[in-house]
């Protein structure tokens, strides 16, 4: 039952984050690239003011899977590193915390380029 509720909260929260972006794309002239930048920065800011922790607590994957979660991970990493190493942590914390996702994207992207070729589109 717990899992079901967690999934429901993840579904609703994740869905709402996507809908906000969709409205921004359709109603303003914001390009997808700008939306992604906006979301990452929003994630950092929301974490900094202490809001995003609650969203993650509530929605789990619904908050960490969207790109705002990427910003959340960066901000959390920075907090932890600053607490441990002082000012140097401001430089090391962000990428350390997101290194898994970024390195995975680089590795799998590269491997995909070795294996696959682009196909004609219909």
């Amino acid at each position: 039952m717990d899992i079901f509720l967690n999934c429901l909260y993840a579904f609703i929260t994740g869905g709402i984050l996507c809908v906000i972006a969709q409205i921004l794309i359709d109603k303003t002239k914001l390009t997808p690239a700008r939306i992604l930048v906006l979301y990452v920065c929003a994630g950092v800011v929301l974490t900094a003011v202490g809001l995003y922790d609650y969203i993650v607590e509530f929605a789990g994957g619904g908050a960490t899977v969207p790109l705002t979660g990427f910003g959340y991970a960066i901000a959390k990493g920075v907090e932890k590193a600053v607490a441990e190493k002082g000012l140097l942590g401001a430089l090391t914390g962000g990428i350390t915390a997101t290194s898994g996702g970024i390195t995975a994207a680089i590795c799998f992207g590269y491997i995909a380029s070795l294996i696959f070729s682009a196909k004609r589109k219909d």
Partner: protein
Amino acid sequence: MQKGIIKPKRTPTLISTYSVVGKKEHDGPLGELFDEYCEDDKFGKDSWEKAESEMQLRAMKGAMSKAKISDDGVDILLAGDLLNQCVGSNYGLEKFDISYLGLYGACSTCAEGLGIAACFYGGEIFDTCGVVTSSHYCASERQFRFPIEYGGQRAPTAQWTVTGSGAFIVGAGGKIKIPEVLFGKTKDMGITDINNMGAAMAPAAIDTIERYFKESTHSPEDFDLIITGDLGFEGSEILKDLLLKDGIDIRKNHVDCGLMIFERKKQDTHAGGSGCGCSASVLSADIIKNLEDKTLSDVLFIGTGALMSPMTLFQGGSIPSVAHLVRLSSK
């Protein structure tokens, strides 16, 4: 010196034409009319750019063999495409032992090339000119928009670049005459949206068409068709609406190559086709054949081109456009 409408003293004719397209275009309403198509859009090459060059090569060879002439029989090649530095044409046509001029007019290149060929012939500079233009969806998508496998949504006003090429031999002895040419002026009405190029190009088409009817004694009813290439749905509607406001009614006989080549809804091409290969292949496969068998006798062909680059767009620049008019007549 001729200003405005050019009426070549020696009237040029279209001797032959040949079209090559991709799979999606072959699946469209004009499918069977194209001379050649390729199942995977690669034309046996390992990159989209090389595939586009191959299309031009095949189209030009096809047109020359239909006209039964070899390299010595063609005095000059006029060619263009959408790729940076016109590489589609540069690499495709180096196999010919013929003088070559590369053109860039975006989607208007086909009309531009036919117009220049008509002037060369009319001015008795060259006797036989080859005109060939092409575009390739995958090659231009990579250059102007996103990687091919990138996932995104297209705006309803966006156009779909046609994979295709059309070649024409202009000279003496053909059935279809080119009695008049009117080169367009660059127009920029401040449109910055790459997803609405029809709206960016419509003002250029309006200007050229208005100048033509003002200077000539003709009215739109004198022509079987007024063909634009390629304003798509959005641009065509703007064109008809604004021309009507200025007292020129082309609603009955206007068609657009971008709307002819795809079934918009079924093939999910939003506002229709575009690209140098769109008007060239539609003209070659459909219009010219109808002129030859006299289904059509007199048409105006207006090629419209949006002349931006990704760099100018990123800098916030608007999209200048141009429209060239070529009259084709089998009377």
